[in-house]
C-alpha cells in the first residue's frame, strides 16, 4: 500500500490511437475494443516495483480530441513522465507528433521523461509507419521508443515501467528535485516516530472523570 515514490504520468496523442486502451491494459490487464471518447482527462493508478522500491504510478489519460486540447494542456504540468502515442496504422497520427511534442515541452517541466509509443503493433498488415521511422523520430528528439499493442498487451508493461525506470535514474542522478511537486514526483508518506496515543486511548471509555 505504501510507496516510496509517486510518479505522475500523462498519456497524450491523437484521438483514437489507443491511449485509454493502453491505460486499461496496464491497470486492469484487459482490452476493450470499443471505448468511449475520453472527455478531458481520466485517471488510472498502479503500483510497480523498481530496484526493490514500490512506486505508484498516477496516470492522467488525456482526451485526444482537438476541442479538449487547451484543457488537457493544463494537465501537463506536474507530470514526471509522458507517453506520446501514435497509431502505426495511421500515418497522420505520426505526422502530428511534432506538434504534440512541442506542446508537451512547452507546458511541462523540462526534465519530463517522454516515451514515444507506436501502438497497434498487432495490426501488422495495416501498418503505415515503419518501426524505423518511429525509432528515428525518437532518436532525433531524445525520446525513448517502443511499439506496443494494447490488444495483445505486448510491450505495454514495459512501456510504463521503462519510463518509470528512466525517471528513477534521473532521481538517482539528482536531475529531478523530488521535493518540488511540480516535477510530478512525490515521496511516499513518511513514518512518524511516535504513535502512542492509539493504544493508550483504548482504556479511556469512561470519559466522565475529573472535571475542574
Amino acid at each position, binding site marked *: 500500500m*505504501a510507496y516510496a515514490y509517486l510518479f505522475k504520468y500523462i498519456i497524450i496523442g491523437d484521438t483514437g490511437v489507443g491511449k485509454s486502451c493502453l491505460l486499461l491494459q496496464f491497470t486492469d490487464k484487459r482490452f476493450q475494443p470499443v471505448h468511449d471518447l475520453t472527455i478531458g482527462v481520466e485517471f488510472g493508478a498502479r503500483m510497480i516495483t523498481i530496484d526493490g522500491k514500490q512506486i505508484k504510478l498516477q496516470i492522467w489519460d488525456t482526451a485526444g480530441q482537438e476541442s479538449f486540447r*487547451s484543457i488537457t494542456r493544463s494537465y501537463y504540468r506536474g507530470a514526471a513522465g509522458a507517453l506520446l502515442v501514435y497509431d502505426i496504422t495511421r500515418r497522420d497520427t505520426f505526422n502530428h507528433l511534432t506538434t504534440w511534442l512541442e506542446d508537451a515541452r512547452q507546458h511541462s517541466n523540462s526534465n519530463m521523461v517522454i516515451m514515444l509509443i507506436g501502438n497497434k503493433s498487432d495490426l501488422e498488415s495495416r501498418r503505415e509507419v515503419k518501426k524505423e521511422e518511429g525509432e528515428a523520430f525518437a532518436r532525433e528528439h531524445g525520446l525513448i521508443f517502443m511499439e506496443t499493442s494494447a490488444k495483445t498487451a505486448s510491450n505495454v508493461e514495459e512501456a510504463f515501467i521503462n519510463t518509470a525506470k528512466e525517471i528513477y535514474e534521473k532521481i538517482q542522478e539528482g536531475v529531478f528535485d523530488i521535493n518540488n511537486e511540480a516535477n510530478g514526483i512525490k515521496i511516499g508518506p513518511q513514518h512518524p516516530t511516535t504513535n502512542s496515543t*492509539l493504544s493508550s486511548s483504548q482504556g479511556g471509555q469512561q470519559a*466522565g472523570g475529573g*472535571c*475542574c
Partner: protein
Amino acid sequence: MSDSRVSQRPEEDAVPADAASSPDVSTDVAPTRKARRRPEVQTMAPEKEEGSKREEEGSKVVTRLKLTTVSTEAQSGWGYWGSWGKSLLSTATATVATVGQGLGQVMERAESTLGIPSPTELSAQMEEEEKQRGEKTSVSKSDTDSSLGGAMGMLSSLSSVVQSTGKTVISGGLDALEFIGKKTMDVIAEGDPGFRKTKGLMNRNATLSQVLREAKEREELQTEETESADSDRKLVAHYGVLFDEFQGLSHLEALEILSRESESKVKSVLTTLSGDQLQQLKRELQTIKEPFSLVEFDEEEVDEDKGGDGAGCEEELTRVLDGLGVPAAADHLITVRACKDASAQISHMTSEHVDRGEEEVEEEQEEEIHAAAIRTLAELTARSIQLFHKLAEKILSSSCEADAAVLSRLTLVLCKQVSLLSKKFTSCLTSAGTNDRGDVLNPMITNVFLEASNSASYIQDAFVLLLPVLEVSHIQRRSSEQQGTEPIQSEEPLNRETDVGLK
C-alpha cells in the same frame, strides 16, 4: 478566550431565544477551511487523559451557546453526560447560532422522549452526589451505563433533529464539541460572519486536494502501524484511502487546476478593461457569483423527502442533471448509480440484520456497516467531484452554458444525499448494536457523521471551484457574441493561450 467572546456579545447570554430567531446567521454555511481539518483516527476513541480538558472546552461551548439550562453547573453535568454525549451533536460548518439551535432542540427532545432529567436537575443531582462523596469527580458506573442505553435508542431521532435544524450538520460529542468550539471561536474571532462566504472563494492557502492527500497518507500509515503493532484493533474503513481509490483526489486536483487557470484568465481579462466596460462585466460576473453564496441546506427539502428513504434521490439527481443543459454522459450515470447502490446496500443490510442478530455477530456486523457507510460516503463524494470536474471540462471545451443556479441546486441534492445516507447508516448501526456497547458503537457513529459532514463540505468546495470556470465561459460567450459587431479588448487575451500563472 471564552471570556472575551462572551463580552463581545453579551446580549445573547441574556436572551437565548435570540440565537434561534436570527435567520441570517443561521443560514450561513459557506464552507470554511477549518471544516476540513480531518480527525486523526485515534481521536475517535475516548481518551481519559484528555477528558477533563474536553469537558472544560465542552462546557465553554455550551456556555457560549447560551443554553441557559446548562450554565455554570454544567461542568459537573457534563461529567455525567460525557459518555453518551459523544454521539449527539455537532456540525462542521454550521454557525454558532445553528449549533445553539440544534443543541437546544436536541436537549429538549432528549428530555421529552426519554425522561432524562433536565441538565439543571442533573447538575443539581450531581452536586448532591458530590457533596455526599466529598469530591467532584467520578461518575458511578451504573449511571453511565443507564444513560448510555438511553442514548442509543434516541440517536436516530436526535440526528434527524440536528440535521433538520442545522445544515451540514452532523454528530460528534465531546470531540466534536471541542472541534466546534475551536472552530466557532475562530469564526467569532474574525468578527465578520459575512466574510466567511467570500473567504472560501478568495483565500486559499492550502488546496482541498492537498488536505485530503495528507489525510489519506496519514491513514495509510496508520493502517500499516495498526496492522503490524496492534492486530486486535483493525480499524477498518479509511475515508481518505477509499476516496483516492475512487479517483476522487485526482478529479479534485484536476478541477483545482482548471479553476486556478480560469481564475487567472478572468483576472487578466478584467485588467484589460476599464470604465463602463469593466463595470458592466463586473456586474455580469456578480450575477454568476450570486448562486454560489447561497449554497445551503434547505431544511424543508430534507423534510419533504418522503420520510427520508432516499428513494427519490436518483430521480431528483437525474432531473437536476437534465436541467443543466450540458450533454448527459457516463459520469452523470455514474453519480446516479453511486446513489442507487448505496440505497440498495442499506436496505440489504437492514434486512440482513433481521435475519441474523445473535450477539456474537453483532460486533462484526457493526464493523461491516461502518465500513460500508464510510465506503459509500467516500464513493459518493468522489463521484460528485468527478461530476463537477467533468462539467468544468465540458463547459470549458464546448463553451456550453451551465446555469450557476442549477449547479447550486445540484450541490444541494448531493449534500442532501450525503446527509440522508449518513442518517440511514447510523440508524442501521444503532439497530445492529442493541447491546449496551456504546464504547464500540459511539465512535463508529461519530465517525460516520463526521465523514458525512466532511463529504458535504468537500462537495460544496468543489462546487465553489466551478465559479471561475463559469466566469471564463461567460466571458468567452460574451466576446464571441460581440465579435460580429465590434472587436472588443477582452477578445485578445482569451483567444491566445493564456498561460498566466502557468510558469
